[in-house]
C-alpha cells in the first residue's frame, strides 16, 4: 500500500460517516442543499476523468446530464417503469452515447475537442426540443415520489451519496489500473503514449464513457427530484461550466479535488447569494479568479502540500508566470 492509498482510505474514513450522518442534523433545505452539492461533486468528479486525468477538456458534459434526466423522464412517465430501472437506463444510455459520440469527437484535440463537445450538447438540446416523446420544448413531468416529505429528502440524498461513492471508488480503481496509467500518459503526451503501444482510442473512449455514465446517473436523480424538466434547464452550458470550475477550483487530476471544489463552490455561492441578492455573481467571479491566480493546482493542493502561506501563493504565481 503506497502513501497515496493510505491518504485516500483516511479520506474515505473521515468523509463517509460525516456524509452519512449529514441529513440527520439539518432541516429539509439543508438536506436538499447537500443533495445538490453531491450532484455537482459527481459531475465534477466525472468531468475529472476525461478532463483532469485524460487531458481532454470537455465543454459538453452537460449532454450526459440532460440525457440521463430525459431517459429517466421518458422511462418513468411514458413507459411507466419504476425509478431503479430508469436510473440504470439513464446511466447506460449516457455511457452508450459517450461511446458513439466519442469515437469521432475524441479524434480532435485541444480547442477543437472543446468546441465539438459544446456543439454536441447544443445539438442534443435542439433534438430533445423537437421530439414528440420528450414533449418538446414545453418540458415533461415525472411521477412524484410518494413518500412522507422528510423521507423523500433522505431518499434523494442517499441515492446521490451512493452514486458519488461509486464514482469515487471507480476513479480510484481506474487510477491503479493499466487503463488509468494509459490515460495519464495520454494527457502528458498522446503521441508518445501511442508509440509505446497504448491503444489511445480505446482508452479515451472508455474514459469518456465512464464520465458520461456517472453524469447521466446524476441527471437521473436530479430529474426525479425536480419532478419536472425542460430542455433549457438540463442542457444548459452553465452546468458544464459549473462542473469545470468546480474541478479546477478543487484540483484537476486528483481524486478528492472535484469533491472539495463542488462543496466549496456550492457553499460560497449559497453564502454570497444569501447576502447579496444581485452582486453575488460579481463577488463569485472575483473569488474564482483569485483562486485560479493563487492556487492554480486547486484547493486540494493546500491540503496535500500542507502549506498556507504567502510564500506558497507567490511560488504559484511565479511557476505559472501570471
Amino acid at each position, binding site marked *: 500500500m503506497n502513501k497515496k492509498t493510505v491518504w485516500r482510505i483516511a479520506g474515505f474514513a473521515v468523509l463517509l460517516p460525516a456524509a452519512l450522518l449529514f441529513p440527520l442534523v439539518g432541516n429539509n433545505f439543508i438536506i436538499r442543499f447537500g443533495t445538490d452539492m453531491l450532484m455537482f461533486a459527481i459531475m465534477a468528479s466525472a468531468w475529472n476523468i476525461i478532463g483532469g486525468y485524460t487531458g481532454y477538456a470537455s465543454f459538453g458534459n452537460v449532454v450526459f446530464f440532460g440525457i440521463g434526466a430525459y431517459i429517466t423522464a421518458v422511462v418513468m412517465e411514458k413507459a411507466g417503469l419504476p425509478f431503479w430501472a430508469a436510473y440504470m437506463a439513464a446511466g447506460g444510455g449516457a455511457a452508450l452515447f459517450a461511446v458513439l459520440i466519442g469515437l469521432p469527437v475524441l479524434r480532435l484535440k485541444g480547442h477543437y475537442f472543446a468546441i465539438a463537445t459544446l456543439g454536441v450538447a447544443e445539438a442534443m438540446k435542439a433534438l430533445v426540443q423537437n421530439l414528440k416523446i420528450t414533449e418538446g420544448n*414545453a418540458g415533461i413531468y415525472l411521477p412524484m415520489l410518494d413518500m412522507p416529505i422528510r423521507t423523500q429528502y433522505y431518499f434523494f440524498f442517499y441515492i446521490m451519496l451512493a452514486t458519488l461513492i461509486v464514482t469515487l471508488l471507480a476513479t480510484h480503481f481506474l487510477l491503479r489500473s493499466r487503463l488509468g496509467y494509459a490515460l495519464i500518459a495520454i494527457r502528458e503526451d498522446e503521441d508518445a503514449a501511442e508509440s509505446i503501444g497504448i491503444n489511445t482510442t480505446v482508452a479515451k473512449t472508455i474514459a469518456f464513457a465512464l464520465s458520461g455514465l456517472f453524469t447521466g446517473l446524476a441527471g437521473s436523480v436530479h430529474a426525479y427530484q425536480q419532478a419536472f424538466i425542460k430542455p433549457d434547464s438540463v442542457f444548459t452550458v452553465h452546468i458544464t461550466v459549473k462542473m469545470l470550475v468546480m474541478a479546477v477550483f478543487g484540483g484537476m487530476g486528483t481524486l478528492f479535488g472535484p469533491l472539495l471544489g463542488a462543496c466549496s463552490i456550492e457553499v460560497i455561492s449559497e453564502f454570497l447569494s444569501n447576502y447579496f441578492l444581485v452582486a453575488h455573481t460579481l463577488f463569485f467571479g472575483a473569488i474564482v479568479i483569485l483562486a485560479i491566480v493563487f492556487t492554480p493546482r486547486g484547493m486540494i493542493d493546500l491540503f496535500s502540500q500542507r502549506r498556507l502561506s504567502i510564500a506558497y501563493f507567490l511560488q504559484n504565481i511565479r511557476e505559472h508566470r501570471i
Partner: protein
Amino acid sequence: MKNVWLRNLVALLAVALFGAVGPQTAAAQAKTIKLGCAISFTGAKSRSGKLYRDAYNMAVKQVNDDGGVKVGGEAYQLKIVYYDDKSNPGESSKLIEKLLAEDKVNFLLGPYSSGITIPDSLVARRYRVPMIEGGGASGKIFSHGNKYVFGTLPPAGQYFKSTLEMTQTLKPAPKTLALLYADDKFDVSVAEGTKKLAAGMGLKIVLFEKYAEHTSDFNSILTKIKAANAEMVLVAGHTEESLNFTQQAKELNVSPKLIGMTVGPSEADFRKSLGADANYIFGVASWSPQMNFPGFLLPDTQEFVKKFKAKFNYDPDYHNASAFANVAVFKDAIERAGSLDAAAVRNAIAKTDLKTIYGRVRFAKNGQMKGASVVLQIQGGEVYQVFPDGVRPPIYPFPAWKSRR
C-alpha cells in the same frame, strides 16, 4: 506588509457579509405574515423578474400602510422574503425549499416564466402551502392536478380569443388566417387554442407554422405567408421575434389585412425600436393600463397606473398588474380564512371572487384565473385598447407598407 493587508481584507469582507444579518433579525419582532418568493434577480429572466418584484413591493407597502392584514382581530404586517433564482428552475425549487424550511414563510408568491413556476409549484404541493403566481400562463402548470398553485394570467389557449371575436365585427371580415408560433410551452398552447377557436368560427387556417424560440430570420416564413395569401397573420412569440418579424415583413413588403401579436405591441421597447412601423399592429393583453376596474387595495386601475408610474418611472403593463393582484388576493383570502393555516387559506383562495385593479379575479377548478384578454392596437405610436369596449375603434385593414410615407 502583505500579511497585514490580507488580514484587513478578510476582516472587511467578514463585516460586509455578517453586517447584513443584523437588521433582518431585528425586524422579525412585529407580527408578520411572511410571503416567500424565489425570483430572477440575475440571468436571462431578470428584467421580467423586476416587473414582478416592483409590483409585489408596491402592493405589500399598500397593504401595510392601510393597517395590514386582519386575522382574528389582530393586524399582521406583510413581508416578502426574496431570493435570487438566477433564472434557473433547479435553483428556484431549491430556494422554495429554503423559504419553507428555514425562513418558515407562510405562503408563496410565484416566480417569472412557466418553466420555473412548474418545479416551484411542485415544492408548494409537496409541502401543501398555497402559491399564487402571476408569471406563468401555460396550461401545463394547471394540468397536473396541483391544488396548491393559483395563477392570475388567463389560459394561453384563450389569448387570441378576443382578437378572433374582433375580426367578426370588422368589414369585410378576414376569412383566412396564418398562425406562427414559437416552440416554447406558452406559445404552443396559444397556437393550439387559437387553432381550435378559429375552426369554431369558420376561419380557414392557411398556414400553421412553428419556429424556434429566438429565431431572427423570418424570410422563409414571410414568403410562405405571401404565397398562401393570408388575410390575417397572428404571431405568438416574444418581443424580439415580434420585432424582427415586423421589420422583415416591411422589407419583403408583406402586408396582410391584419397583423396581431401576443407579446410586443404592449411594450414600450417594441414601439420605440420600430417607430412608425409599429403602427396598426394589433396586440393582446390580459390587461391594459387604459382599463378601469374598481380595485381592492387601490380605488381603481387608473389610480394604480398613476401611483405606479410615479414610484417606478415606467408604465405598468399586465405583468405588474397581475403581480399586484397576487398580493391583493392573498390579503383577501387570509382575512376570509381568518387564520394563517395553509389549508384554510388555500380553500379561501380557491373561492376568491375579488374585484382588483387587474379585473375580477376568480379561479377555475384547476387553479387558473377565469378571464379574457383585450385587443390593443398601436395608433400614432401609442397603444390603445380597441376591443372590447375600445377607447378607439380598430383601424382595419392594415395600410400596405408601400402606401405609407
